[in-house]
């Protein structure tokens, strides 16, 4: 018999509102699945069953009193551990914040709480969201549910793996250069990186402020739309949040793609991308053409410079954002220090992992006097050009389709000592963050070994609806998520 945790959120939502099931039953099912399987997967860093059940009871009361206004009332949501949860540890998978318990909720957490959602737990990630495999987590490496010897992708690897293995119904992640889409691709689920400014960043522990964006994971497009509906919206606490009206993506979903123009940029199908991945994506495009969409060749000529520009901007901001972890106020402080400078040096040397330190050093370098113009300023110019190229491309097409990740999931340990090879995993995703655009990754095929491939659909600013519609049409034509055999 199908367990409750295996259903999609939109199905569970109906079952809950029709009172066929309770949120407590559903939450128990998710927690049991976690108990059963997470020893193999390591998706969660922290769960508190008692607290989750309490939230479920509260949700059941809300539903019973017909006060529930949200379709997500009673649905358990897994939360990436860089999203501030009041009273619940928020470690960013770092030794630096091992014992840090926030005194405030991120805006998205307040929204989920008002909707009557249940928190199923906090999910593993690369330390401070820096990485593409979760191998940079201080605590544990998450395994890919399709092959336990492979990485789940990153940095939101815990979120993707939890949803893929049914340890979570839906989950929140964050995406700075591909951290939602790449793990979604590697774990065969749907992941949306919303337009910059559409989801409040208040309470998201910052990696690169101008690129970070919280977004949803689900096993189907409908679930992603449901969760995005709940978290999107203007927030006066975030100055970069866009003050506009947001309509329901779930209500607007349609698989009619007749006449839709799909841009296919050659720069994303050549060097560095596995031919099998490129072929799988093109297959999907042909499938969509059968449904009335039109494929058009477009060019985004500066793509080749995007990775460099991305790592300069992201590291520059990170070097400043992570400076607050200094041992003075909260989190880790080194012992036996000889004065203030020694305390700073020891705390930060011992509290941060290698990749985080590497990026802080890179960022410090590119901002330092004498190098600022050569690196940071140039990267910002490139950002302007990349944005312009997208704007130009969107004059002739409605969406742009590319591979999400240049390859399927790689083996744990394969790239951890080669940072450049690891950075290359972001080659198809970083431009979207640089341009502030929305993009969704959907499963679009499997390797011979059964590992998922992902297709990325990029849209115009604030046009999440069109990319989700295409993703929905693709899912209906192609079949979408397949459960890994565990």
């Amino acid at each position: 018999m199908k367990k409750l945790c295996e259903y999609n959120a939109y199905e569970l939502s109906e079952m809950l509102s029709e009172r066929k099931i309770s949120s407590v039953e559903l939450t128990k099912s998710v927690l049991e699945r976690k108990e059963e399987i997470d020893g193999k997967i390591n998706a969660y860093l922290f769960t508190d069953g008692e607290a989750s059940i309490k939230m479920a009871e509260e949700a059941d009361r809300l539903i019973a009193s017909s006060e529930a206004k949200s379709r997500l009332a009673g649905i358990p949501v897994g939360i990436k551990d860089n999203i501030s949860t009041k009273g619940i540890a928020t470690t960013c998978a770092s030794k630096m914040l091992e014992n840090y318990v926030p005194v405030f909720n991120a805006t998205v957490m307040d929204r989920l709480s008002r909707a009557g959602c249940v928190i199923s737990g906090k999910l593993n990630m690369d330390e401070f969201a820096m990485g593409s495999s979760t191998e940079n987590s201080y605590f544990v490496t998450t395994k890919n549910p399709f092959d336990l010897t492979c990485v789940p992708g990153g940095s939101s690897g815990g979120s993707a793996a939890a949803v893929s293995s049914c340890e979570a119904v839906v989950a929140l992640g964050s995406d700075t250069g591909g951290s939602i889409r790449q793990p979604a691709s590697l774990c065969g689920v749907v992941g949306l990186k919303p337009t910059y400014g559409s989801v409040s960043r208040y309470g998201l522990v910052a990696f690169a402020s101008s690129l970070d964006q919280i977004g949803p994971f689900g096993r189907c497009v409908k679930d992603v739309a449901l969760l995005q509906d709940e978290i999107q919206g203007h927030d006066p606490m975030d100055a970069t949040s866009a003050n506009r009206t947001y309509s329901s993506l779930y209500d607007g979903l349609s698989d009619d793609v007749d006449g839709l123009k799909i841009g296919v940029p050659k720069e994303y199908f050549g060097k560095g991308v596995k031919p099998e991945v490129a072929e799988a994506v093109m297959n999907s495009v042909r499938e969509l053409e059968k449904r009335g969409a039109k494929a058009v060749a477009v060019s985004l000529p500066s793509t080749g410079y995007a990775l460099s520009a991305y790592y300069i901007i992201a590291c520059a901001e990170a070097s400043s954002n992570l400076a607050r972890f200094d041992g003075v106020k909260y989190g880790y402080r080194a012992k036996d220090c000889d004065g203030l400078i020694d305390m700073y040096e020891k705390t930060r040397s011992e509290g941060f992992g290698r990749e985080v330190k590497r990026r802080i050093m890179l960022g410090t370098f590119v901002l330092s006097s004498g190098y600022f113009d050569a690196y940071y300023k140039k990267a910002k110019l490139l950002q302007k050009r990349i944005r312009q190229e997208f704007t130009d491309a969107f004059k002739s097409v409605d969406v742009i389709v590319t591979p999400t990740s240049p390859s399927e999931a790689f083996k744990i340990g394969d790239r951890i000592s080669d940072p450049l090879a690891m950075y290359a995993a972001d080659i198809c995703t970083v431009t979207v963050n640089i341009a502030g655009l929305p993009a969704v990754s959907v499963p679009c095929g499997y390797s011979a070994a059964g590992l998922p491939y992902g297709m990325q659909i990029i849209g115009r600013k604030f046009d999440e609806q069109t990319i989700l519609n295409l993703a929905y049409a693709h899912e209906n034509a192609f079949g979408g998520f397949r459960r890994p055999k565990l």
Partner: protein
Amino acid sequence: MIKGYEVVVGLEVHAELNTKTKIYCNCRNSFGLEVNTQVCPICLGMPGTLPTLNEKVVEYAIKMGHALNCSINRICKQDRKNYFYPDLPKSYQISQADIPLCQNGYLDVIMDGGEVKRIGIERIHIEEDAGKLLHSDKFDGSLVDFNRCGVPLIEIVSKPDMRGSDEAKAYLETVRSILKYIDISDCKMQEGSIRCDVNVSVHKPGTPFGTRCEMKNVNSFSAAVRGIDYEANRQIEILEAGGVVTQETRRWDDQKGVSVSMRTKEDAQDYRYFPEPDLLTIVVPEEKVRELKETLPELPNAKIVRYVESFGLSHYDAAMIVDVVEKSAFFESCIDAGCRSPKLLANWVLGEISKFMNEGTAIEDTCLTPESMAELVNYIADGKISTAAGKTVFDIIVREKADIKAIIEEKGLAQVSDESALEAIADEVLAANEKSVADYLGGKTNALGYLVGQCMKASKGKANPGAMKEIILKKLAERG
């Protein structure tokens, strides 16, 4: 000019703004409350928090920009200044780097002699204040009070246009006075709400500027004067001994009266400024900029000139009244209430009123009103009561609401100006003091004062001293 050297001074003034809330969060902006009570996750820089700009801060800074004749950058940005210190919870300060809110202005400073010196203003930018380190004998280490974190500041940077400490002092006093008149800062030195960094260099006139040193930790205007003088002398001594001044940052130790080297140019901190990605570009509508200029009150320099020209006050008296907003406001209210002698009024404001204000009593805390003060001054100006009688009346109307006319009648304070009454007194006194009369007539003119004094005594202080003197003189002339 010292030993043929000209002293060149530039100043960076940091002023805390008196907005209700802090610059990037909703915490209260107030001084002197219990440590770490005016804080929230945002001003504590907790992970994931974001700043949102208090628009009042921009308005206040633009007001100062207008007052200092600056051009306003309607479109500007905020930047991060990165450095580690325990009082800076984010380990960066949000400030403005290459595009300040206001720039290229000037301030005319009136020196003691009345001559005007124009000082260029390089820029005014907005930024956040840091917390404060505390040390306690009961605790091994340092403690941090974060209440001041995120208190809004403006930094006013002058051009190196001052020549010596007297001009620097006049500049600082004028800046402080403007801040108070446009009501954007409390300017309490002892609370650290206004602080400055001082740049000093020396050179022989006609030669290029010398190498400058920056002095930090200057906590009062008088300390600035002492610091500038010390630093100028130090540099001149080096040059006179054939040495070279090195560019460096020094710390002023006011207690010891010396500046001490902190760091040289070589190991200057690299603040790695870059645009603050958490905040949007500041865009101030043109109408707003204009509106802020229109709402600017009369500034202190203009007031001083008006008091001198319209009311006939001395420059010194005018400056003394204008120096304190409350005194100037009361002075003008009395004029508006019909006071006919601004000069006499100025004496009262700078005398009796200043006396109780210096003791910490505000005018509003007394029963004194502009109407009663104006009436009292008019009585004196018209010769109806003497200055001494005025003091008696003043002491009463400060304490209680009372009718001045009634007091004068009740206490018999009215001054006698009636000629026949005064002549009778004069005759009596002259008759009783033949020796003094003889002295006066013999050329000892100071006997006059004695005789007038005797008349005043005889009248029990009620005689109008001016009229009394006239009559005595007339009678003495008759005898001579």
